[in-house]
């Protein structure tokens, strides 16, 4: 059982069970329904790391980030929105392509083969 946490100063108020590890795509993202909102979960096989963020791209407000290509910029893991290729750090949520945009990111841990997302306030 491995636990991967991303840096965050926010308090986790709930570990939300999103699904079984084997159902998640490898080296890609997928959307997760949480209450009335949508999150995106990404798995990087090379580094064996999981990341979660909002699914909403703040640029044109499309529920799209889970369908974007993932990769790295320097050491920073990132996702590129499929609509206009705005890229965001999956660690900090900062926009890496130079726009005044930001996304929320969440911690992810794996427990008993279940992917859990650390919901913050």
């Amino acid at each position: 059982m491995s636990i991967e946490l991303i840096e965050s100063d926010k308090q986790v108020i709930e570990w939300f069970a999103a699904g079984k590890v084997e159902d998640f795509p490898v080296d890609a993202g997928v959307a997760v329904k949480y209450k009335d909102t949508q999150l995106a979960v990404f798995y990087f096989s090379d580094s064996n790391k999981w990341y979660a963020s909002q699914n909403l791209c703040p640029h044109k407000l499309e529920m799209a980030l889970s369908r974007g290509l993932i990769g790295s910029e320097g050491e920073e893991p990132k996702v590129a929105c499929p609509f206009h290729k705005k890229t965001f750090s999956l660690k900090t949520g900062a926009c890496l392509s130079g726009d005044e945009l930001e996304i929320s990111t969440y911690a992810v841990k794996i427990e008993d083969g279940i992917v859990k997302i650390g919901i913050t306030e």
Partner: protein
Amino acid sequence: MSSIHLNANKATILVVGNGMTGYKFCEKFVDKGLMEQYNLVVFGEEPWAAYDRVHLTDYYTGTDVHDLKMAPRSWYEDNGITLITSDPVVNINRDEKQITSSRGHQLNYKYLVLATGSAAFVPPVPGIDKTGVFVYRTIEDLDNIKSYIKDKKDAVVIGGGLLGLEAAKALMDDGLKTSIIEFAPRLMPRQLDETGGSVLKQKLEDLKLEVKLNKSSKLVLGNGSVTGIEFADGEVHNTDVIVVSAGIRPRDELARQCGLQLGERGGILTTPDTLTSDSSIFAIGECALIHNMIWGLVAPCYDMADVAVKRIAGEEAEFSPADLSTKLKLIGVDVASFGDVFGEGDGRKELVYENKATGNYKKLFVSEDGSKLLGGILVGDAADYNTLFQLYSNEMKLPENLDSLLFTSDGGGLEFNVLDLADDAVICSCENITKGNIVTAIEEGDLTNIGQIKKCTKAGTGCGGCAPMLNDLMDAVLKASGKEVKKVICEHFAYTRQELYDLVKVEDIKDFSDLIHKHGKGQGCELCKPLAASLFASIYNTPVPQQSAIQDTNDRFLANIQRGGSYSVVPRIPGGEITPDKLIVIGEVAKKYELYTKITGGQRIDLFGAKVHELPLIWEELIAAGFESGHAYGKSLRTVKSCVGSTWCRYGQQDSVSFAIEIENRYKGLRSPHKLKGGVSGCIRECAEARGKDFGIIATEKGYNLYVCGNGGANPVHAVLLATDIDAATTIKYLDRFLMYYIKTAGPLTRTAKWLAQLEGGIDHLKEVVIDDSLGLCAQLENDMQGLVDTYQCEWRTAVENPQHRSQYRHFINSEEDGSSLKFIPMRGQKRPADWVKEEDPIAIGVGVSS
């Protein structure tokens, strides 16, 4: 009202106006280190952080507001500047040195900087306040025009200057019949002479823009909304929309209200040290009247900002009259003028060149002894502008043969090497950056692209006119230092696409993980992953569904993502031929899944609005009726368009439909560096528009003429002739070789036309390779292509028949809901996605948007 927090121990500098000049002042203020001494507070009346007004028309044609920003709001925060938007200053109390804003902020200043800019000048014509009359100045103006013209047909632009012509082009592109009305007897009267103006007029008329000169507006007609305009000569011109672009008027209301001295015809009276009649108040930019003139270009306004910053820092500085050189790509027509454009003064010689057939006009003024260039006008082709401008601004000695000045870029003789320029030669006149600055930056910073030069030196960030010069300088410096100028794919792969193609093929690499471990670094990105996927498909025909994680979203879902996050589905209809039964199936599927249907430009039918989970269901029904994927989502062969040809047409020379079907079926599914389109016409009338395609075949009496490397799109290019009067089998043989050679050697996302333009030796080289087999490659190229043809599979079928792949077609991993935030609105009996939200600034962020 939010409160403003300032350091009580520091004096405050207040900037009124947050346009380009106001922003430039802040930037230079920060660079000078003055933030340690002062609080800097900026008030702007628009809701945005400063944006680039020079490129406003880019916004009209689709560029995002964010892309026009001079700097993000965070830049102000990071530098400790207080930026207050949507809150104009309404009062200045000069005795108390205090301002009041519209929202009630009251602040004291040590120095006040007025950068209030200018507003559009609206001539006092009766009726000009009617609905449907607009100015062309701010983002709001453009938004208002956009929404007003939706159902309108005819537009008039008042003013034939720079901005007026841009506005006219934008309206014309939105489908309105557009006329330009100019008061003066020629277009761009301040930049062009009579011949230059008439050459430009002819060019615009060729583009179907109407130009009316010598017209003085008398009355705007209409009851509430505009219906027309009446001129002083009695002519009435009916129109639905009027856009006024008749010059600028300095925004001097605030200065007037607090009693600063103004010029007779407006503008804040300002000395060359940028001070107004109050020694605590500066005025910079288009609101300032300096040297008895309003300076309406970026470069002089930036100079004023620089002077004001230096004065505040206690340095000596003066604004000197600037050069009003301009170079523009107007409506696809180059126009440039520099120096003394009207040849004023004695003892000057004129050099004139005019080609009426092509609409090229050049006029240059040289000194009497022929040693120096004093100014000039270029219309139609301004490729020589940068060279000529450097000769002029650096007062360089001219060559003996002055004729060469008129033909510098066409191989006419003048050899000009950017490295020969003096180190203090100004390359970027907006930012005042010299050749020496740039060369030093390149050498010391190890810079290898223009973006880095812009970032390091700010050169090229103003009007952008010096970009070609920066490029030349970059290449020359790198070449001189023995470095190779190489176009690598991205930070993960230090190879060109062609090199990677060879590595993949030679080492038999078949997946991305293997490729990046052997030849790259990091975890890949949105550039190299789809590129690798395309290579694997071009070399091994690896079915796309097997590598979905490295595909762009369209390839991952085998459909085209549309606004709102739905997808469109395009079945292949080879050659545009379809049976009534198949048409009925498309209609039934569209009805069942409530899809918007549209005939595409490639003679097939696009079904819009499918949700992700519906895609496999739709494909299954289409496949059952004999359809296949049309690959509309891929960088691959799209369509081979045809005219009806000799089977029905009384003019047809060959059966173009049958040949188009044969070719489309041969190359369907072929992955390439960019999309590929083809066409087959049955005769010289060319109804299939084959010469606007990557490959075009036009039937002749004896066989076919084969054209290659054309495209439509933003920069239309006609395909060029590769071979004449060849039979069908030879056509296919040459096509195999041509396409495979392109796939092997082109850069990423490079279409055939651009590839040919960059190919050393051009079409002659291509003929030698494809027809004469000069490289001995032809057997290999044909063999590779045959391999791809033999291993074709319909990707939709592969996807629906593979349970693991099929399981990806759902929105949520943990819910059956379709999860889409799709909202549709009805239109002409069908539906379309709701408009994108209008951008707020900054956009509220969070997950709290419900599904």
